[in-house]
């Protein structure tokens, strides 16, 4: 009987000691969070989506949007306008409606517009910015509508125009537009891992 009591006391002491160790060192929590290395790997996945034409074509540094997988200048002399929605007489909504118009090949979605210049992911020569630069722009709250990590994650998870990238509709010739390199679920997971790792950014080479 006394041996059983002694064994019980020993197990209890070891358990209490382990719990105290975990609380003071945070070992268990750290084991569940992605490391900075994992966060950087996740960021590269996110970057591969952000620089796909379905996304970056509307994150230009210029006065016009782009279109197509070759990212050419939008036809019909379309311009950005002061509110990133075109100009009177030639608004985005002059053609782009609330949903894709597959019969005419015009893509559409809720509140179709260009990203503001503060969220440009290209230079003025239409070349995508580096991974390090896009990372810094994306998490800069003075440029991203004051979104913190969870806010960015929610944006990637729920924003209608983000979702559009995975449902881009048909081109005027009837063929399907190409999709980003990850599924939306993979994109959200990569964003989550990057956010949970503290949103690390690569260093500029």
């Amino acid at each position, binding site marked *: 009987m006394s041996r059983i009591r002694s064994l019980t006391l020993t197990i209890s002491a070891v358990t209490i000691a382990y719990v105290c160790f975990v609380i003071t060192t945070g070992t268990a929590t750290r084991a569940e969070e992605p490391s900075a290395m994992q966060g950087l790997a996740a960021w590269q996945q996110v970057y591969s989506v952000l620089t796909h034409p379905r996304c970056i074509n509307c994150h230009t540094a210029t006065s016009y949007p782009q279109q197509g997988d070759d990212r050419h200048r939008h036809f019909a002399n379309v311009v950005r306008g002061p509110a990133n929605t075109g100009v009177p*007489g030639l608004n985005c909504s002059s053609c782009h409606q609330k949903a894709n118009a597959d019969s*005419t090949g015009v893509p559409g979605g809720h509140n179709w517009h260009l990203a503001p210049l503060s969220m440009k992911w290209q230079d003025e020569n239409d070349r995508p910015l580096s991974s390090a630069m896009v990372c810094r722009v994306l998490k800069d709250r003075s440029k991203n509508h004051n979104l913190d990590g969870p806010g960015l994650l929610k944006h990637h998870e729920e924003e209608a125009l983000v979702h559009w990238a995975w449902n881009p509709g048909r081109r005027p010739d009837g063929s399907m537009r190409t999709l980003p390199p990850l599924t939306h679920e993979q994109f959200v997971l990569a964003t989550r891992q990057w956010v949970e790792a503290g949103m690390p950014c690569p260093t500029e080479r």
Partner: protein
Amino acid sequence: MATYRLNVNGRQREVTTDPSTPLLWVLREDLKMTGTKYGCGVSACGACTVHVGGVATRSCVVPVSMIDDRPIVTIEGIGVDPVGRAVQNAWIDKDVVQCGYCQSGQIMSAVALLKHTPKPTDLNIDESMGGNLCRCATYVRIREAIKSAGNQLK
């Protein structure tokens, strides 16, 4: 096929057609309103421009199923609008038209511009009218007429 109730130039109209039919063809074929022109069919020339919910819209690429309850104004109805009347008068005064094919679209875009910017600069006109092509190259007279109409508006 589906039936749509459209508000066209202040009148309720009913059409039964395929949901994917562009608004242009509903106007021209179903409602016999041929003032709105077919140019390129891919929203590159602006000849088909009408106003939908107050926005200049390329009717050749917008399916009728996406109009919902937004009012439509075409070249046939723009003259009752004060800005529309001023633009039409300026178009006549400046003798803008040559062959005329693109002009209904030009006028609809010009009205949309002047409703937001009554005294447009050359840049405003270039940007707003940049999607309306004219093979007769009446652009100089269009610019003059837009400025003239703007000056007539209070």
